[in-house]
């Protein structure tokens, strides 16, 4: 009869081990914290941005961290290692100059003549004097770079920003800005196809792909942000707030 006791002990231990392994150990039940949010109900909420997709967004945030860590940043680091910084800067300028086209048509769509002509002059100057955009003499001549995209054009015409959205690889966005960049990308490919600069070259598609990859690398190379690097537990919340605040302020211009 007593032989059953070791069996009970063994199975209890196994059960406990099983719980520990899943990380969902059956601990004592939750006890409310000493301080809770109700206690401070008389104060205004802060950095509190509506985020109905928070669980998804946080998962994407985490995904981007791993993507950066195991793929993107190693590639960017290799790029920074093998490419002289003079060349890196030329590449940055080149893509930045192509990006002026986006600002150009979006300034037009926002009926902003001043921004349109400034950007037009920048593009003209840098494409010619700046040798196809490799240099940026326009900035030295006092023509400051502006930046516009289709997401902001939508904002200009009164489209609400929609929920906060963390996109894979691209990071913080709103539904509006995500839709906007999809439109900008389509316009770009349409322009590229219409111009077809690689018409007579074999493997034109591979070249286009290569250029796109180089552009992504350049973009990440310019962006100093690293997911979770602050070590601050509320980094996600602060970044979300800063992103929204920046978008809000940019629309005032």
């Amino acid at each position: 009869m007593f032989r059953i006791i070791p069996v009970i002990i063994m199975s209890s231990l196994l059960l406990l081990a099983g719980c520990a392994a899943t990380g969902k150990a059956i601990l004592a039940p939750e006890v409310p914290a000493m301080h809770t949010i109700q206690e401070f109900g008389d104060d205004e909420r802060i950095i509190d941005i509506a985020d109905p997709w928070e669980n998804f967004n946080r998962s994407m945030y985490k995904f981007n961290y791993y993507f950066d860590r195991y793929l993107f940043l190693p590639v960017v680091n290799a790029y920074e290692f093998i490419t002289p910084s003079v060349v890196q800067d030329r590449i940055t300028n080149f893509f930045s100059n192509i990006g002026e086209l986006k600002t150009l048509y979006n300034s037009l769509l926002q009926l902003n003549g001043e921004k349109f002509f400034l950007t037009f002059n920048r593009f003209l100057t840098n494409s010619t004097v700046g040798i196809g955009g490799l240099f940026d003499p326009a900035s030295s001549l006092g023509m400051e770079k502006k930046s516009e995209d289709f997401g902001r054009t939508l904002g200009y015409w009164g489209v609400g920003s929609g929920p906060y959205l963390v996109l894979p690889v691209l990071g913080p966005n709103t539904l509006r800005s995500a839709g906007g960049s999809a439109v900008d990308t389509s316009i770009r490919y349409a322009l590229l196809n219409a111009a077809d600069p690689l018409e007579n070259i074999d493997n034109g598609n591979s070249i286009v792909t290569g250029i796109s990859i180089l552009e992504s690398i350049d973009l990440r190379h310019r962006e100093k942000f690293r997911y979770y690097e602050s070590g601050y537990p509320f980094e996600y919340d602060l970044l979300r707030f800063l992103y929204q605040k920046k978008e809000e302020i940019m629309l005032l211009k």
Partner: protein
Amino acid sequence: MKYVKLALIIILILPFDFGFAAEAEYGYPISDNYISTIWGTPPALKITMPGRIRAQRLILDIFPDRPKPDIFFYDDGLQCTLAYQEKKAPLVFLIAGTGADDQSRKMAAMMNALYHAGYHVIALPSPTHPNFIVSASASHIPGDLTEDAEDIYRVMEHAWEKAREYIEASEFYLAGYSLGGTHAAFVAKLDEERKRFNFGRVLMVNPAVNLYNAVARIEALLDGIPGGQRKIGAYFNATMAKLTEFYSRGGFVKINDDFFYAVYKSNLFSRKENGGLIGLSFRISLAGMIFSSDVMTNSGYVVPKNRILESGDSLGDYFFVSVHLSFLDYFNEYFYPYFQKKRPGLGREAFIDSLGLKGIEDYLAVSPKLGVITNADDFILAPEEIDYLRRVFGERARIYPRGGHLGNLEYRDNMLEFVGFFKQ
């Protein structure tokens, strides 16, 4: 915490170019100690450093078997920074101030200056930084200077084990700023027993004489905001609204140096409001510390006891609660009870006294290797604490007439004094 700064913290760290009439004896221009603390040193008055430095991140696995909660999944060890010479040189350990990591702006400035003067440098995060609490603190409860010193010492040993694969050190020195300065004194004392490094020179820059008193003085800055400390959220929102309004009214093109310079010039914020900003920025750091510590110890202070947080969980409410807790709350409800349990019979006053330099005064008074640099208008020090530093350190205390809390750190005279200290 480099990237994730609130706009108002950006203000706290962005330096500008402004033209004040310099006085003959000491040229640091800003006489208001909140403004100097917020705006720092105008670029034209800093020493220009040539070129880049050779540096790399060290990731230290201090407690290899320690389980990490899912919400800290990204924490894979303590992050320190090593800047190295390509020849044998003295090595300076740097300890960051409250809530700061190894690459904070002030750490970078100190590291740069020392590197260009020919030293190896190992920069360590503050024991109050979440990364340290999760990965390098034995108790996960920072603030007890003696225990913090033990933790820091352990980290230094690990860091040096790793660094010696790359570099040769002729001698070891030590420095820290703010709370890190106070830590440096305790680590130096510990080293007298352990004798692992035998520090040749130890410098405290704008240290707290007593942690409790210093923090109480910072917290008191929040008393000046409308509605007092409990309305910190409303104050934050009002500040952001004020900045946004100023931006849209002023015809600025970007949120850049020009914009912040204009904010500075316009006296957008009153003295009370500037004090409030300093208090607010401190609270934001403190919130990270309180939350991290509570999660690691499962104490049920701001997170329900036994709750397992996962990386997808919303943390906004915990931020809101934590930011409303003062250091005094943390002290009375969390920190002191923990040590009371650990050391039965520990009185509150005796405990507070142990959180400062007085407890090791005998050592500080006689050890010629120790020095202090601070400012007469540093608001984390009471006037009698300035006198105390003068009395205990005598010739070894360099007290500048102004500069607030670390506002003049990068001013050229201060940097020369800072680097020069290790050459004596």
